[in-house]
């Protein structure tokens, strides 16, 4: 059995839409704009593909923060996907807040394919915020720990 990691590093799951934000993350990479390794990106076709279940799952499995990145309003590759995402997430986030997961642990951000610098800035900010908040215990499934 693995011991519970004592010096637990924060874990941030970022859902990035394939057309804007994932490309923005690539641009951050090719421009060598660093952000913490705690951020792990999952590629989805569109921010509207992010099922609230995924976020709950992430928190349940011990993620300390979840960020969803999509195209800027009006620029969605699928025209309206990011609007759906925005509405769903604002509902979900207030519910999570109610459950005791701080509002700052969740975030929606619009990053275009040209905004490598913004991507890195957002990730740095978000990671330092999560660091400040510390470990998220609320939804962590105890079974995952051993």
């Amino acid at each position, binding site marked *: 059995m693995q011991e519970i990691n004592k010096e637990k590093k924060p874990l941030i799951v970022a859902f990035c839409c394939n057309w804007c934000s994932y490309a923005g993350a690539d641009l951050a990479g090719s421009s060598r704009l660093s952000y913490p390794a705690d951020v792990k990106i*999952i590629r989805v076709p569109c921010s509207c*593909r992010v099922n609230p279940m995924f976020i709950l799952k992430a928190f349940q499995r011990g993620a300390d923060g979840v960020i969803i990145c999509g195209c800027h309003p009006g620029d969605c590759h699928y025209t309206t996907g990011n609007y759906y995402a925005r509405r769903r997430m604002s509902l979900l986030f207030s519910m999570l807040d109610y459950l005791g997961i701080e509002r700052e642990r969740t975030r929606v951000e619009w990053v275009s394919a040209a905004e490598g610098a913004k991507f890195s800035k957002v990730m740095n900010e978000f990671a330092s915020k999560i660091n400040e908040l510390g470990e998220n215990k609320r939804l962590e499934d105890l079974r995952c720990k051993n």
Partner: protein
Amino acid sequence: MQKIGVFVCWCGSNIAATVDVKKVAEVLKAEPGVVISENYQYMCSENGQALIRNAIKEHGLTGVVVCSCSPRMHEATFRKTCESAGLNPYMVEIANIREQCSWIHKDIEEATEKAIILGRSAIAKLKLNAPLTSGESAVVKRALVIGGGIAGIQSALDIAEAGFEVDIVEQSPTIGGNMAKLDKTFPTLDCAACILTPKMVDCAQNEKIDIMTFSEIESVKGFVGNFKVQIRRKARFVDEKKCTGCGECMQKCPSKKGLNDFNMGLNTRPAIYIPFAQAIPNVAIIDPEQCLKIKNGKCGLCAMKCNVNAIDYTQKDEIIEREYGAIVVATGYKPISLENFNEYGYSSYKDVVTSLELERLMNAAGPSDGHLVRPSDHKEPKVITFIQCVGSRDTSGCGKPYCSKICCMYTAKHAMLIREKYPDTEVHVFYIDVRTPGKNYDEFFRRAVEQYGVDYIKGMVGKVYEENGKLMVQGSDLINNEQVVIPSDLVVLAAAIEPNPSVRNIATMVTASIDTNNFLTEAHAKLRPVESPTAGIFLSGVCQGPKDIPETVSQASACAAKVIGLLAKDKLKCNACVSHSDEMLCTGCSVCANVCPYGAITYVDKEFRLGGGKTEVRRVATVNDAVCQGCGACTVACPSGAMDLKGFSNKQIMAEVDAICKR
């Protein structure tokens, strides 16, 4: 049991310098299901691909994970590799350990750990991948060109030349665009009309080209190969088929006070008019705001005078629907409005004009028949001052942050033409930088300075004010380090250019992406410069970025080549990652159909066996694979969880989340 192969790429030192690739390969080999784990310097190279192919054959791999650069870069490459080795191309997953790992992290240990996690996540997803096949859809062999300027004309001619039908939709009453307004063109000083109007005539005479002027795009539905476009043909109150363009009506019209748009509002035109002599189509149009008959029912002179009964005051807008395989956006540009630049006095003084207005003032077909006079008193100006970069390279928010690219050259052209035709005229040019890259361009500019004695002053103008009937241009001369005031008769502003405002709406309709300056984004800035990221949408001319005529024409032809390449195909492969509904779970609630931006979801009544010989008819969702673009909006909206997206299924993404969160 799945047999997975993991291939870790070094990307030379791009990955290997910060990620311990050998360790990554080693650790991932221990993952359940992985039978082979290799690392190699360049996976995307021929040798690297051969390595993958051999492994597939040798080990009978059922799936491949490549830890390399971004999937946006080489996913397609590795899919093809696997396909050629007999593996379904959708059984490939890429772990992005370059852009999202090695390039942004410096600590080797940290980067290696992250690379392993990303690899695990890709393996977890791959285990749930299913072989996918993409459907096929037919291609409508007809192209739509939006915009009838030189870009649209060139694209349309080239497409028609290859034997495909093309429609040009132009919002103004004639094709020709901005180029038709120009006097001469740099660097050869050909007359713009002499080289453009033959092309316009070619368009009109080409059987494959259908020109719809005074028309706008109303809506665009569909996808590459199968666009359904509604076009609004606005009422011009003149029957296009009957009108012969004789111009009798223009003579008779009593309401002559309309501003002539074609001449940049420098003179007036009647309410019924033909934009200019070589307009295509050469058909009159009535301005309903100005027409006495339409406004208050009294007049009707033009209808009486018309020999062919072409005039119809009751004409209404008409909406037609057509199908296209490809759409070319060639919406062009306009000079920016100068309301934020009051210091130059454009709105206060008649003799402060924009460069495009100067083109009309110098044009033989312009308001002064080519005799350069100032607008206020129709006298010949003796001192002309040009101001460059009016609104270009402006990050203060008043103008545009980019360089408009064409101004340096056309100002040199104007200065040269003026000095040539009126040698006693003094010409000054205030500039920040003179930018003249291009074949014979710098030579052209130097000729203006050296041969024609145009006075170039390095520095910007602070203000323009009137004193004793002169326009005083006060600016910096940074070379001499002094403030200068030049009493001028005419001031010409090189206004920045911006994309035609209609492009925003069009981009939304065709779902093409657009940048913060309203220029359309290309699929790849260097390697796919004439395509939009949205399949089937192509970019021609200034709508993609500032460019001059030679560049516009080359881009328009490049764009046509891409369109021809698309239209030459009989069938297109569709996106394989589409939604599908689990009919056993679907309750037929219609939520998914409502969120679908493409109208890809329809409902059918289907008979289900209940057992015991009983059947039940239920309403269930079906997805049209050819129309679905795979955004996944429906999957989240579906309350019963019946909708899922192939290639990005709920289970797959959950598995990724799990793998990432596993500590």
